[in-house]
């Protein structure tokens, strides 16, 4: 309702014309004001291209369609969980409980699937469980005077402990063959899990850029006081973000259950580093307010190719660790230098 803008008639336009600056066509890429937002989101893409090029030289088969599908399907779980983590990090928070919620969601789903035989019921139960956990964590993080790092660390312990306790530490299996198929095959030879991840990214990116909720998430992260004073329901936004993270972690847990043909409480634990690593590698700021899902997608693919490449090269696991660590650091510092130079100019 722009008509309702006050002062449009009441306030006179300024007498002094604003000084204008002509922008050369060639400089539009460098001009943050003119450059389309998504272009900035792809700042890690050159690094990804370099990585793939290097890997292709070192080993064969990297750029074959089947291997690319492999990388995508292997990354699907981290990718989906990283959507939720991106929203949390955009508010300036962090969710250390992601891995444990992946376990909890997967175990719940697998338990319902094995006892009722219905995949749909299981998926619904898993999603419900994950979202509920996220909502509780988020409500505590938003309403009580605590830092997200500590709350979600506590939640990590409680959720993984409780899931292990309730599942007696066992793997819940077997699940129906059709459910396993979800992570193996799909239209065009690309597994359904990958299609699901793609759709979820499209939806989440749209939600972030095209809805009021997405805007509020960015604003809470950019400056919580400005948001509060401007009428944003800060506590509700924060709580909702953790609930959304719980939702996506649970979906990731269900996809992982399908990929592994069974669920165990501990299965999500090792993924936390990759999830947070992918979000930050993509260039979403840990301080909140800056970032996007496009960035996270590039970060996920980057890590996916790193681990795929190392596995193809047959590297020993300790060498893989060293290289993963070094790559995360170098990629983060390259991006950091880039942002630093932009800030300086």
């Amino acid at each position, binding site marked *: 309702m722009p008509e309702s803008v006050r*002062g449009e008639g009441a306030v006179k*336009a300024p007498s002094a014309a604003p000084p204008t*600056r002509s922008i050369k066509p060639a400089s539009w890429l460098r001009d943050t*004001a003119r450059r389309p937002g998504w272009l900035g989101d792809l700042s890690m893409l050159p690094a990804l291209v370099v990585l793939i090029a290097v890997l292709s030289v070192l080993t064969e088969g990297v750029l074959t369609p089947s291997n690319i599908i492999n990388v995508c399907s292997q990354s699907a779980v981290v990718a989906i969980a990283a959507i939720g983590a991106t929203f949390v990090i955009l508010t300036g928070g962090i969710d250390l409980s992601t891995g444990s919620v992946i376990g909890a969601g997967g175990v719940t789903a697998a338990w319902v699937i094995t006892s009722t035989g219905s995949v749909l019921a299981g998926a619904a139960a898993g999603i419900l469980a994950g979202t509920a956990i996220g909502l509780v964590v988020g409500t505590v993080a938003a309403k009580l005077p605590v830092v997200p790092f500590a709350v979600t660390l506590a939640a990590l312990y409680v959720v993984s402990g409780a899931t292990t306790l309730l599942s007696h530490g066992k793997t819940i299996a077997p699940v129906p063959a059709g459910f396993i198929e979800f992570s193996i095959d799909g239209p065009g030879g690309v597994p359904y899990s990958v299609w699901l991840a793609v759709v979820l990214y499209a939806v989440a990116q749209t939600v972030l850029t*095209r809805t009021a909720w997405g805007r509020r998430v960015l604003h809470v992260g950019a*400056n919580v006081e400005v*948001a509060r*004073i*401007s009428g944003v329901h800060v506590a509700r936004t924060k709580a909702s973000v953790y609930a959304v993270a719980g939702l996506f972690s649970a979906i990731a847990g269900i996809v992982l259950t399908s990929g592994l043909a069974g669920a165990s409480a501990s299965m999500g634990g090792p993924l936390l580093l990759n999830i947070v690593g992918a979000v930050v590698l993509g260039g979403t700021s840990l301080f909140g307010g800056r970032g996007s899902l496009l960035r996270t997608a590039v970060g996920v693919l980057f890590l996916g190719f790193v681990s795929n490449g190392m596995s193809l090269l047959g590297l020993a696991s300790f060498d893989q660790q060293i290289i993963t660590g070094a790559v995360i650091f170098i990629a983060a510092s390259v991006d950091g230098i880039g942002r630093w130079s932009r800030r300086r100019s």
Partner: protein
Amino acid sequence: MTAITVTGLSKSFGGVVAVDGVSFTVRGGEVVALAGENGAGKSTIKNIIGGILRPDSGHVDFGDAGNVATVHQETSLFPDLTVAENILIGHLRSSRVGTVRPAALRRTASVLLRRVGAGFGPDAVVRELSAGRRQLVEIAKALATEPRAIVFDEPTASLNLDEREMIMRIVEQLRDDGVAVLYITHYLEEIFRLSRRIVVMRDGRLVADRPAGELDRSTLEALMVGRELAQGYPETTKPRQEIALSVRDLGDGARVEGVSFDVAEGEIFGLAGLMGSGRTEVARAIFGLAGKIGRIEVAGQPLRRGDVRASIAAGIAFVTEDRRNEGLFLERPIRESLSIVGLGSVCRPLGWLDHAAESRLTKDLATAVALTARSGQEVDGGSLSGGNQQKVVLAKWLSGQPRLIILDEPTRGIDVGAKAEIYRLLADLARAGTAVLLISSEMEEVLGLAHRVGVMHDGRLAGILDRRRATQEAVIRLATGGIR
């Protein structure tokens, strides 16, 4: 006895020239004022002199002064350390092994605190001090180096009248002791009171370096802005009959109690008082940011307590005193800061944003406040000048139909040109029927704009003066606890 000699300083940031060939000197025993609008290059000069920035060309020479101390604008103290530790943070190394001797620290700090006339001890934790006291700590810290030259950067920006007076006395004392003082401020009266010479900067260049006696207020303003400013304050029309805001026995449960007043539609109600008298607390309690006691009605409807969203829904807008941290997003496009309050009006069902409607809205808002941001609405808020930032904060509230707009220090730290535009905007808002609650430390501004002036003293409303009776003397008498 020249203490600071600046010769041909130039500095640019990523192609933008901030300071261009500036030269001047400050001698021992004199105060030189550095004046200029925001973005004129004063801070860059200060940072180069203070050694924080390195110039692209030119140099700074301290002559026999040896070193220079800087008193910063935004206090650069450590909230978790004690006063003594803060003052002597640069001089902690009292023994060779790097251990700290608390007793010696405390003694030295006490001496410095006495020198600035502080009425508090060295053991207090800085977090618990008021803004004025922190500024004193800041000065004591600068004095710890026994400097022969000091740069003051807006030392009084966040202080009340008493505290400003105290700071100015300290400056005068330092000057009499033979210290060279470079004084940066927006308060022209301080410039004329303290300085012997005035250096004026505009767009990174030095435009004047003259004895203070040769300049008067309007010439100085003209030098700073580069054009003649319209004199005085805009005309305001008579308030309407309807009461927009009614406050009864308001308290915040801590410093403020028993505050009652009404503001009519179309009225500009000034709230004066010393810093710490509770003006800001009243504003925050009305807006729902602080716990409130008492009764507030907006257009006859009672307001739910402690609920910002309810206040906004009732038509209250609040421009806080801290625009950088509470007003706009420094690291997001200004479009988003502009549309945040009116976001609901550009939303379709399911919270779907209509980007076209949003950009129409923000363009209209920017036009309404005469926002002169050069590069459009996609630049980050942090890249704007203080004046433009304040205009963005004001504009974001105009998307609704504010019944009442509360402004806390709306012109603090912004240049004269932007000030005039904000005054005109307030007058226009009032003419259109909005009630305006204006809080300001600049008495002239309150007296020039407000229909009535409420004066706070020690957490209570000491009295309300209408325009005819609201003179500087009357306000000060009430503000300092005198009788009407």
